[in-house]
């Protein structure tokens, strides 16, 4: 088994449900099925991209992967080791290998502390290193993410969005993690700055042998960074496969609709591309539809789709789809 085939993180029928309301509220206690029956394998050195509309559960899944949320059902394995219900103190040694970068760097950085200090924080918590070593490491990290050493004494508000995200990334890689979960890391940035961060993430991955789980709603960005893609709809994965393949020949109707909806720069007259416009909205995860959860919006839904829920099946090595009548190529 080569290193790249070795799973680093695995979920088995993972589910996350939230309870909302009380027995005194109008509808009583209800359950939100945010993530439902997700089995996903992340292998060493790859980038798995999670895509889907807002509310499809991709961020919830990301938070489950780093155990920021407790998992309701199913299993989470880190290098084969079951970490589903490990206590916080048991998780601590793992945390240094499993890091996360958030969407809004101005919300995830403490505005009252200097950024040098913020980047040093994980080092202080996890390593028993001296002050001098910490300073040296922070300087090294700043260089790695493209910040200047004299930026260390500044506060987060003194930076632009792109630079703040660099600080967020420096913090995440401070402890030499193996896996970094990136939740919409470029979505809040200006277009001209997005490409810088995408390139930076690619460079870091190569240099530090990182594995990424990358979430973004911008599909072209996800395609650029990912080796594999998982398309989520209403809490479940509906299609999975190599990034370029899924984009070129999506098998699930939902993936087709999603990809065809992306506006692209064309020099030919508009409308040359075939587009599937979905009607209706994403159903509420409070009352997920019966059968295939996509059937109320699916243009090719049949009777079977209303009653029987399709499983995520591997129809070709590396390609999985959850549909009764997928478009196979």
């Amino acid at each position, binding site marked *: 088994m080569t290193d790249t085939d070795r799973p680093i993180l695995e979920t088995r029928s993972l589910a996350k449900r939230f309870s909302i309301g009380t027995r005194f509220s109008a509808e009583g206690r209800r359950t939100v099925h945010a993530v439902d029956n997700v089995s996903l394998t992340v292998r060493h050195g790859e980038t798995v991209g999670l895509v889907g*509309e*807002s509310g499809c559960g991709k961020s919830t899944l990301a938070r489950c992967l780093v155990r920021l949320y407790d998992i309701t059902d199913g299993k989470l394995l880190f290098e084969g080791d079951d970490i589903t219900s490990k206590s916080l103190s048991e998780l601590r040694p793992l945390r240094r290998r499993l890091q996360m970068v958030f969407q809004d760097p101005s919300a995830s950085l403490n505005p009252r502390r200097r950024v040098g200090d913020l980047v040093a924080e994980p080092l202080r918590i996890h390593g028993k290193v001296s002050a001098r070593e910490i300073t040296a490491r922070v300087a090294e990290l700043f260089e790695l993410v493209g910040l200047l050493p004299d930026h260390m004494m500044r506060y987060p508000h003194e930076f*632009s*969005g*792109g*630079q703040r995200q660099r600080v967020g990334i420096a913090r995440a890689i401070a402890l030499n993690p193996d896996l970094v979960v990136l939740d919409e890391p470029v979505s809040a940035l*200006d*277009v*001209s*700055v*997005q*490409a*810088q961060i*995408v*390139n930076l993430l*690619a460079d870091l991955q190569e240099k530090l042998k990182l594995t990424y789980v990358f979430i973004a*709603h911008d*599909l*072209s*960005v996800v*395609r*650029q960074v990912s080796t594999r893609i998982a398309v989520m709809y209403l809490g479940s994965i509906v299609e999975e496969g190599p990034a*370029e393949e899924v*984009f*070129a020949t999506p098998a699930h109707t939902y993936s087709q*609709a*999603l*990809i*065809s*909806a*992306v*506006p*692209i*720069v*064309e*020099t030919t007259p*508009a*409308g040359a591309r075939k*587009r599937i*416009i*979905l*009607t*209706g*909205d*994403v159903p509420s995860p409070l009352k997920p539809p019966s059968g295939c959860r996509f059937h109320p919006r699916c243009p090719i839904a049949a009777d079977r789709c209303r009653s029987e829920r399709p499983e995520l099946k591997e129809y070709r090595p590396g390609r999985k789809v959850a549909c009764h009548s997928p478009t196979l190529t």
Partner: protein
Amino acid sequence: MILSVRDLKVSFRTHDGPVRAIDGVSFDLEESEILGVVGESGSGKTVSLLAVMGLITDPNATIEGSIRYKGRELVGLPPRELRRLRGNEIAMIFQDPMTALTPVYTIGWQIAEQIRAHRGVSKSKAMERVEQLLAEVNFPNPHEAMSRYPHQLSGGMRQRAVIAMALSCDPALLVADEPTTALDVTVQAGILDLVRKLRAKHKSAVVFITHDMGVVSELADRVMVMYAGRVVERGTRTEMFSDPRHPYTRALLGSIPPLTGEKPRRLLAIPGSPPSLLRLPQGCAFGPRCPVRYEPCEAGKPGLGASAHAAACFRVA
């Protein structure tokens, strides 16, 4: 000619000194034409359109230049006169539909209010019109939707309600400020489709502000690219995307990862970030980030010239 803007300048007095948010913007808009305005945050795309709408009420702001709507000068028009135009002949759609709707009234009531204010029709007449409008923006069940409150609708539906409101008085000019930025691509596709259909039906002229080159390419007839308060390039859609001339436009197009075909190993990123309007660089504002800058760029600001497809760059002129 619906709209003709000439040498528009907007500056704000701030604590840290004067900020020139818009520095000499000119453009024209014909009937049933869609103009795409592209730019990053701070490029002045929103401020220039707020100026057109007469919505800059900040006492620290100064507006210079000329904004002519159907030949009538809007700069300096008394607020009462402006109010008669706004919402009636000129309508606006904002990025966040939740802030454009009041949470305490139903969708139907809010749209009807606007119709009654501008047209002076009876309440029942207005309500009839609302139902028509909601059907036009593809509400599956318009009659029922009228009695809904904004919080009961999804983001896409709210934006459709705002569009219905904007269309309620058949505006000749529709200004849309990033109306799809907060929406999913699937919903966005539907809204863009709607804008296209409405343009065809009502012959409204549309100014569509966005940071997404893809959206512009799908929707606009003509495109205007803005950077640091100035127009850096303008042209038709085809000119802009098959022959981008300004280094900024080129860089912006190069930094978008492709959705099909070969993946580039690295994206062509633009170094640095957009400049602060308080500390604009000497000469061309894009100079410090520009791959082809040379001495003249630091000496003076390049002008746009008069041709239809023009770029404000010394290298191009």
